[in-house]
């Protein structure tokens, strides 16, 4: 009986000590962030959603080879006959008139992506054509949407196939933490 009372009083005393610890925290500023009304901005090295710039890409395929999950696929633009090159306006031509290899289409399957950053490290272009933005809010509602496709002229987030009609279109309802993702 005596032991029991001792134990209860000791437990009670220790609970009070524990409550003292929690009481001290009560008067500290809250550390909770009220997401989605408040948002933290990640640090510059954060590996978020991949952004891709079709204008800067030289279609070298280094990212395809670096990726451990084989989520990237691309097709180079078809070579253009010489005479057409001079006349047509849309084709990329370097100052010497040599054709620069450019991208026809470029896809990333986010369903398999590890967000590891190896593709970004492998990209040889000076301003990275493919880089991890700070966006952490990507949401995919269908499996098809997870494969993003870029063509020249698309924005940094690419297009996804709609299951309803099979057309590629810009991804609706996607919130981005920053409109212009940092480029490393």
């Amino acid at each position, binding site marked *: 009986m005596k032991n029991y009372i001792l*134990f209860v009083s000791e437990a009670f005393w220790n609970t009070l000590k*524990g409550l003292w610890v929690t009481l001290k925290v009560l008067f500290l500023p809250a550390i909770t962030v009220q997401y989605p009304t408040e948002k933290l901005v*990640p640090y510059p090295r954060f590996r978020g959603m991949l952004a891709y710039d079709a204008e800067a890409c030289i279609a070298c395929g280094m990212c395809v080879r670096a990726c451990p999950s084989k989520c990237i696929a691309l097709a180079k633009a078809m070579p253009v006959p010489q005479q057409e090159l001079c006349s047509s306006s849309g084709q990329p031509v370097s100052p010497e008139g040599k054709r620069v290899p450019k991208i026809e289409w470029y896809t990333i399957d986010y369903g398999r992506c590890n967000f590891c950053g190896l593709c970004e490290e492998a990209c040889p272009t000076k301003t990275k054509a493919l880089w991890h933005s700070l966006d952490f809010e990507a949401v995919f509602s269908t499996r098809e949407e997870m494969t993003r496709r870029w063509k020249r002229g698309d924005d940094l987030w690419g297009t996804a196939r709609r299951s309803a009609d099979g057309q590629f279109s810009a991804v609706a309802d996607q919130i981005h933490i920053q409109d212009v993702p940092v480029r490393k």
Partner: protein
Amino acid sequence: MTQESSTALKTGQMFINFGPQHPSTHGVLRIALTVEGEVVVKADPDVGYLHRGIEKLFEARNYSQGLILTDRLDYVSAMPNNLAYCLAVERLAAVQPPLRAQYLRVMVSELTRIASHLVFFGTFSVDMGAFTPFLYAFREREMILDLFEMLCGGRLLYSYIRVGGVSADCPAGWEEKCGEFITFFKPRLKDYDTLLSFNPIFKDRTANVGRISAAQALSWGLSGPNLRASGPDYDVRKAEPYCVYDKLDFTVPTGKTGSCWDRYYCRMLEMGQSAEIVLQCLDALAGTACLPAGRELPPGEIMAKGVPKILKPPAGQAYAHIEASRGDLGFYAVSDGSPTPYRMHVRGPSFLNVAILQEILAGCKIADVVAVLGSFDIVLGEVDR
């Protein structure tokens, strides 16, 4: 009478599946329990629900791509996995990482150890019915994750330690932030002791439960805090120092009885030691202490020179093991001279730690199963691989 016999209570053994979806198994582990009343007669841990064939996947990737897989083994403490893998591959390819990278490696490993033990502290207290410590543990862990995010961009799966060094030097202000965290963290350990460690209710629930003798622990091949709680002070950081652990000053806490409380408290003490190691590494990075005479850590030198992008180590084999958060983690790499490993074997500490459950759970009360299991701090990603 017939009615009487049909309503009479039957006694006998009963079979219960504990898991695989039980929240206290911390993953997908099934323990097949045979119970007689409240007492467990037989327990069979059944693993394999999270098997992803990672060892085989290594064989289809080159050495820099394989690193990404190691994060997925013990996802609660990914840095030591990167480290063990890189040490094995470096031994295979005879690469020597620069000293600055070695200090950074040790520092991030110890920070991960703190983060991982904090997860243990939080979840173990929830298992034992105390919710507040969980919130405190995750508050501190968040700070470490922020540090890692600043350093390498990942919050859980880092891929920071690379073959030949680390992927990036610390950004501006990182070292100060790290120092601030340690200053904040060290007094918190006392709070944890007040909240949980020496609370008589918690002690009653864990002390003398699931006791493992030193001989038992050794014969079942336990490692890490689970082994040290039983008495033996085997720690790879002391026994076979890797990186710069031989230049650092720290002690290896051990327990006496090998009960759940000892395993718990061993980890709490380890967190304090890890904080000391981080401080020493910070001093070394700032160029003030524990460097060999005449050496300085040149800023920015974080990668060994001449490591090719596609590594082709000469044919051979290498084994490297480290003291990860959960114990002795080893990677065994076999190369046939091609860019992909011929075989990669992982010695995961959790897998070996889970095996002893069948011996010590027998004879426990059902309520203690959760306490014993929680005190082992297993991660199923590493058990099943």
